[in-house]
């Protein structure tokens, strides 16, 4: 199952639909807090999260998830140059690197990255 987090409802909803269209089970959430609750309930295989979100940003959220639910993969989507270093730092804190795509993400690019990640975790 894939969990999508983005404070922009339109992005979260369309991403979730695209994933569903591609055959994945997917849920859209609109804040890190909401997503954390969803992670607790559904234990997704992968979380696709925006970085710039109010209250708790995606990087902090990713760190929280890494701590609470090791093994859940995270793909971050950022529209900002500076976040690359942040994501790297967060990755080193989590113990494994976090995946990152830069905005705007073309659906094909996202789907191929998702497939790659899911292959990686199932292949291990």
């Amino acid at each position, binding site marked *: 199952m894939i969990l999508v987090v983005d404070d922009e409802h339109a*992005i979260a909803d369309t991403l979730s639909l*695209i994933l569903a269209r591609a055959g994945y089970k997917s849920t859209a959430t609109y804040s890190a807090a909401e997503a954390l609750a969803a992670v607790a309930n559904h234990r997704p295989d992968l979380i696709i999260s925006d970085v710039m979100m109010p209250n708790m940003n995606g990087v902090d959220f990713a*760190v929280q998830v890494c701590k609470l639910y090791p093994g859940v993969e995270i793909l971050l989507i950022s*529209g900002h140059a500076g976040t690359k*270093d942040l994501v790297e730092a967060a990755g080193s804190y989590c113990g494994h690197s976090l995946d990152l795509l830069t905005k705007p993400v073309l659906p094909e690019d996202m789907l191929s990255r998702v497939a790659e990640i899911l292959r990686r975790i199932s292949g291990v």
Partner: protein
Amino acid sequence: MKNIRAYKQADEALLRQAEMLRLSFDAILVWRPGGGIESWNHGAEQLYGYSEAEALGRETHDLLQTTHPLPWSEIEAKLRECGHWEGELHHVAKGGRQVTVSARHQLAVGTDGVERILETNRDITESRKMEKALRESEQCLRALVTASADVMYRMNPDWSEMHQLSGGKFITDTVTTNSAWLQDYIHPDDRAQVMLVIKEAIRTKTNFEMEHRVLRVDGSLGWTFSRALPLLDSRGEISEWFGVATDITARKLAEQALFQAGALQRAIFDSANFSSIATDARGTIQIFNVGAERMLGYTAAEVMNKITPADISDSDEVIERATALSIELGTPIKPGFEALVFKASRGIEDIYELTYVRKDGSRFPAIVSVTALRDAHDAIIGYLLIGTDNTARKQAEEALFKAGALRRAIFNSANFSTIATDANGIIQIFNVGAERMLGYTAAEVMNKITPADISDPSEVVERAQTLSREIGTPIKPGFEALVFKASRGIEDIYALTYVRKDGSRFPAMVSVTALRDAHETILGYLLIGTDNTARKRAEEGLIRNEKLASVGRMAATIAHEINNPLSSAINAIYLVRTDPALPECVNSHLILAEQELGRVAHITKQALGFFREVGSPTDVDLRQVFDSVLDIYAPRLKNKDVEVRRRYQSSTCIHAIDEEIRQVASNIFANSLDALSQGGKLQVRLFGPQSLRGPRRMVRMTIADDGEGIAKENLKRIFEPFFTTKQSIGTGLGLWATSELVKKHEGTMKIKSQLGKGTVVTIWLPLERRDQDRRAA
């Protein structure tokens, strides 16, 4: 008979005398030993309160309850021997009042052969009381002086003789009168000055006060603060000088050492923002500056020469420090002043956190820097403890540690410059990463400056202006401009150029967060920066000056704002296009829409400055690229009556990203078209591989037009983003993006132009990319 007459005369004389003295102020009474009072004058009435009638006939010692200093028998013996006795008596007057008199007893034998005593008493009750009080207060004063002063001395009125000096262990005592005191005690260089001050004190009958050098018991030089008070007699003349002096050698040496220290330390010492405490070698406080008074609540007088800094430090911390040092250095260190200065005593400048305890018992955290003060022979004469109030920093740290785990990880990382400030922007934390990137040590900036002081000033000004416009409130160009958004609860990330200690600059991406307490009050700000040099280097040449930096930022901001709606649109169209129920006729339009949106996405990524490999390099035939682009422009070229001349050499195939080379060609053709508003010629030439510099083979292309040309003053700026002369139709991004793309392909681009004559654009592109070269080699 003669004898009788003589007696009579004596009697008369005595009575006359008594009568005369009846009116005297002294109490005069005549009485018979073992018998009653026979005469009681007005003075006695006044002094004792008994009237003559009450007193006459009474036994005097009974009436006045006399206390004699000696047994009466001894006084009587003296009277018989010498005829008189003088001494002090205590009487009790009517009503119980205690009276002290200076008494004179005179024994006379009258004509009747009866012994009578003429007693003259002068009331000295008040003066005795005063004397007693004086004695007591003098004792007090002496006790006080002995406790607080090292030296006590007495001088004659004109200071020609010293009557007494008790010098403690400081200077040698004088027991007998000493006329050579100036030579004995005062340092030769100070003698003239001391005498000058003394003369003035004598003239004005005011206190003598002076700091001067003295010769100590051991012959060494010492410093003293000496003060003498003139004691005035009843006529107002000086009867004696009473002086005290304090050993201030340690303080003076500390001061001297301090003044030999750098200007910075002196500045700090004079500052009320630093607590500066100088001690002697044993730790006794000698100097306690205004900052220390303010922070700690003690006055200098309350602590100087009394306590050590350990006495105003958290005792648990002192013990802890002693324990830690004992372990670290393998030698037992006592928990006390020694623990505070041990490292400094070993010549190590020591900076650490210490909690001071204020006079009122409250505590405050300080960062203390400890230095040993040394004399010319390098012997330690004291210590200097400079402290800054660490409260704001502590709060910032606490807030920081309440923040996410990530922040803490970043804080400990040398790859991020983490700067925490108090609410006013004064730097409180300056982590190892900040030290590394900016070249300052934490101590150099903490409590001194704000991040705005180490930021590019023109960027700060610009930021303030932009914010002022954006928000409609004037924002001052300073720290406020850096944190304004964060202070409004908006997490803010932006590019900022920091200025290193050596004056060089480096670009950083800075994330700003407000640190808040439990009540949401802002305690300070956290600025986390990453070194953006690598990225900036890729943009070198683009961002040539500060104005450009901000314009580039604006482009990034716009692109960033476009990203979210763009993402939604791309996703929505994708969803529609992949809908199985979609009619075929709609599909081609959707594909077009998707492609166009893809281009927008591409542009925003470019503008954001972190364009990543989207397409991969392929073999690109430049002829084909030029032709296909010119085809696109064909209608417009024709419209404007532009004649195109192409001259292509063979083998103009390069390894590059097709899409980007196409963009380069397209941008330049578009510019030429704009310049050829009145028609004209456009020459497009391609030259085969040649070596420009070193072994790399380059392909050259020129695009020349005989259009309007570019004015000289504009030529310098044409690669700036948003620079345009085409007010209504230009975006000012064309040439900027073109030059960026050329640079990305490791090529160079030059533009020659003359107003009214035309423009020639020359581009060199390598035949193969460097990584390809390496792979080939």
